[in-house]
């Protein structure tokens, strides 16, 4: 297939790709942030337990 044609999106590249880009970016951030927050929360809880290394 012709990739140049594909990325040109019939002249609408400046509208189509930013739409997909912003969706991908925001959905990725929204998934990664809580995932990391839970890991941090559990790590903090672990350290707070009696017998935890300080």
């Amino acid at each position: 297939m012709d990739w140049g044609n594909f990325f040109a999106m019939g002249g609408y590249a400046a509208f189509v790709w930013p739409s997909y880009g912003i969706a991908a970016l925001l959905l990725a951030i929204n998934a990664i942030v809580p995932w990391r927050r839970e890991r941090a929360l559990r790590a903090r809880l672990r350290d707070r337990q009696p017998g935890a290394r300080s």
Partner: protein
Amino acid sequence: MDFVWFHKLGVPRHFYRLALRLSPWFAALAAVLFAAGLWQGLFVAPPDYQQGESYRIMFVHVPSAWMSMFTWVFMAAMAVVVLVWRIKVPESMMRAAAPLGATFTFLALATGSLWGKPMWGTYWQWDARLTSELILLFLYLGFIALQAAIEDRRAAARAGAILALVGLINIPIIHYSVEWWNTLHQGPTVTKFDQPSITWEMGRPLLLMALAFKAYFVAVLLVRTRCDILEAETGSAWVGELATGERTR
């Protein structure tokens, strides 16, 4: 009838364990559906005879817009449970859904704007559909701010539940705005009761993307709810066990 499993869902400890087991499956499902939907939407579906390639924005715009409304309805449903039965898990779920709803709403507005420019000649118009969707974004932001402003988690949840129910009035306004008022926005093509006026070649990627957004919502909602439960239950015995259990592993 055995409703014990259902009652157990209301217990933070049980819900946490269940959510821990379920979220990877929904994340995997979302990944597969996104891959299939993007493939179908970008490579398989033909260009539109009027809008050319620009209509492909629809495959992110429409699922975002649907989810922006679905998420508020979900929060309102949780709000009823919160106000009537005062259970903690739905409080956490309602709070966990708000940032997701705000994201979907923002995406619907942003992608709609990027679609509007080439098709209508403007990024923004103060018409009924666009304005009511913008109000939905403010409702989400208001809900999030309200949760942050009230120190006591349970009181914050009740206040948020009332906002979720009052804000529900905006959902039918968004949905019917294209019929009640003259607007630039086109009428519904998929959610019509008789015959959807969309071809299957374009409908299939749209359906796949909509399901992908839904699976994504569930996966992230479960993780966010777990965070909220952990924060609310810090210091309780089961969270301690969870922490020590992980230490010895």
